[in-house]
């Protein structure tokens, strides 16, 4: 009886935005008389940080400090339409909506400043809350002054609106799955190595470390990105080893009904997590961003399963990989029942799990 170590690898890809697209987001922005910026967007923040990221996009695009931006997603009366916070779409799709609205605001700030400074708007730039003449930074006025002039001198409202829609992709041939245009926006990529310890007496698997490399396009806020992928790693660990709504499947009885009977990962299971962020800017995302939220729990389960094989030489392909399943696989191995069927060119694993072993209503095979 011993504890064995192993390492496993997995690589994943994941799309940004809803499959087949067609999921709009809209936003509008107004500027107060002192230049402070109010953003109205319908994007719910589910902890993913979309309030923060969309505020960053607006501040960057207009050219004002981050703390000048107020973000209101509180209700559907004042905020325009957003399809929602899912499908890794809040930064890319809804972010593009606020980006477009902010560009309009910037243009209007430049137009008013142009009249105030009597300089062509093309020769002006906005940064850090100030409009200045390109090449002559001494000649400038604050965005607060521009907004005051717009309000009280010119009788104008500095505002902007934006909408983003990746047009819907249709399946033009349902027999082949061919689509008429790209069915999603940018694809994000990741690779993960899991290092595990497997106890061959108890079947217990402990993940020692997860090392992950992500191409996320652009880290809009690296702290939030790390939060997403650390959280995703732990969720992937739970999926790989611990969590199951129907632990006695195929019966639906004895389900976990609380935190004490349904095992999500706790600090006790937390492995060392190391992340490498790569920035390969997307062509269509705001500042090159891609979606990152969802894919971050996709690579760990397979990496862990592969590491278990590396450690003790068994494949467990029913998830989660519980101690019971590890022990059953070790028993099968020691009794010589774990080898795939090998016949000529064919190597057939898991035939006992195949639909062919359960029904003759569906025929399936090579």
């Amino acid at each position, binding site marked *: 009886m011993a504890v064995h170590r192993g390492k496993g*690898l*997995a*690589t*994943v*890809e*994941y*799309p940004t935005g809803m*499959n087949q697209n067609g999921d709009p987001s809209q936003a509008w922005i107004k500027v107060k008389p002192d230049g402070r910026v109010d953003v109205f967007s319908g994007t*719910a*923040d*589910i*902890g993913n940080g979309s*309030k923060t990221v969309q505020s960053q*996009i607006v501040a*960057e695009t207009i050219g004002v400090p*981050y703390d000048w931006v107020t*973000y209101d*997603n509180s209700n559907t009366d004042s905020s325009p339409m957003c399809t929602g916070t899912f*499908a890794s779409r809040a930064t890319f799709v809804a972010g593009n909506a606020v980006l477009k609205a902010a560009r309009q605001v910037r243009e209007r700030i430049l137009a008013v400043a142009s009249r105030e400074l009597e300089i062509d708007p093309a020769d002006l730039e906005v940064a850090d809350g100030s409009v200045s003449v390109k090449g002559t930074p001494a000649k400038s006025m604050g965005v607060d002054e521009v907004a005051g002039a717009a309000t009280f001198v010119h009788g104008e409202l500095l505002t902007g609106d934006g909408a983003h829609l990746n047009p819907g992709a249709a399946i033009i041939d*349902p027999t*082949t*799955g061919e689509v008429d245009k790209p*069915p999603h926006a940018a*694809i994000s*990529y990741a*690779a*993960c*190595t899991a290092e595990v310890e497997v106890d061959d007496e108890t079947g217990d698997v402990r993940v020692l470390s997860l*090392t992950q*490399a992500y191409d996320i396009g652009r880290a*809009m806020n*690296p*702290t*939030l990105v790390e939060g997403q992928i650390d959280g995703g790693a732990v969720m992937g660990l739970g*999926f790989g080893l611990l*969590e*199951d*709504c129907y632990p006695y*499947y195929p*019966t639906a009885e004895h389900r976990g*009904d609380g935190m004490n009977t*349904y095992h999500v990962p706790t600090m006790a299971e937390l492995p060392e997590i190391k992340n490498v962020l*790569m920035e*390969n800017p997307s062509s269509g995302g705001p500042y090159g961003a891609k979606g990152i*939220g*969802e894919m971050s729990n996709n690579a760990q389960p397979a990496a862990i399963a*592969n590491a278990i*094989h590396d450690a003790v030489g068994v*494949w467990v*392909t*029913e*998830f989660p990989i519980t101690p019971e399943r590890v022990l059953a696989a070790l028993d099968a191995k020691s009794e010589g029942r774990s080898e795939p069927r090998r016949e000529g*060119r*064919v*190597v057939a*694993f898991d035939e006992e799990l195949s639909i062919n072993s*359960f*029904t003759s209503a*569906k025929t399936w095979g*090579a």
Partner: protein
Amino acid sequence: MKVVGARLPRYDGVGHVTGRTTYVDDVRVPGMLHAAALRSPHHNARITRLDIGAAAAMAGVHAVVTHADVPLLVYGHLSGAGIPGDEPLLAKDHVRYRGQPIALVAADTVDIARAACAAIEVDYEELPALFDVRLGFDGDAPVINDTFGNWYDQYEGNLDVRQIRKGDIDAAMDAADLIVSGVYRTQSVEQVPLETQVCVAIPEPDGRLTIHTCTQAMYFSLGVVCSHLQLPMSQVKMVGGTVGGGFGGKVDTASDTLTALAARKSGQPVKWRWTREEEMLASGNRGPWHMEIIDAVTSDGWILGRKMLTIHDAGAYGRFSVYGLTKHSFHHTGAYSIPNLHFDGYVVFTNKIPTTAMRGYGVTGLSTAIEVHAERVARELGMDPYEFRLKNANRVNDTSPNRIAYEDPSTVEVLQSLAAATGVELGDGLRAMTREQRSGDMLPDHLVAQIGSGGGH
């Protein structure tokens, strides 16, 4: 650029970590009632009698909402995409999963509401239930779903299967040096948000409804509520946007519509907060996937073709499952280019909680299957797992299962980066590899037809 890319503090972080953020459960309104649901105790049963008389007459009970109170009882999550609805907001004459709501009671206190639920008289005629998707195709299987039968049968072209076909799978199998098959089964898991499903609905003096919602998608949920209640969007104001965890489990709009109906029927504000037990046992969770993969490979490590069967366990009703399966089918080659494909996918119904979105929807189980299978194939070939993956990695202008050219795939780069971070020595050839369009040794004959027309996407 100073703001984008900066490690700025979370916009609402201080409120979250000091307990001062207002979530839906923190909303207090004068005269607010509290709701509780009567749920099915059976996996599959006909309702032969439903009598709310005694419950409605109890002191402190202000409304008992049943199917008869819903203007449009059945509205599908994907109705907008042309996929018919199949799930009644409240069960009428049949319950198809344990935990399915049958009635909602609004009362002065939660305890009264629960007691009133217990006083609702229901007679059931229990029926056999089905839990294993592998048995759903059998002729003698219990019929789970009235609208679609035991598997969804209304894909484009009236197909009952989501198909991908590309290249010539038979030729790939014929040409293979090795044919490796495996079966992968991923499970149902709960999203486990800290904030359970919760809603406060307020009937306003002008006849509008204000709905404090925990939805991940305020406008989607606005559409769901307005459809069931048959109201224009002007009559409902959704208030939300700050959600105590969702992970996909708060798109279903599980509590808003029923709470709104209870508020309308009682004429008073109503709060419905699910217990943790309800969240775990009755809210939509990640659906299980049964996946069978057969790869045709060469002895030098090329994947010539993939044949795949996927059966997605939808639970009792469709919700987003057809969407999830379609997305799954579009990604069934993972991070690799495989020129010859034969994919058949089914959404199969069982007497379990309807499954729904969760982080990685349609793909998490798929990535798990693909990557364990890749490892098995590499080991069968006696090939280094990095080399096998890098060789088959998708490259610029390779085409996806849907024949769309990849614009800037990073499979090669993330693998190289991971190798560097973990001290894995890649050979010179693997280190020099890039995402750029295939040429030379990386463009063998079987991949020539795989290359797209070039860019543009």
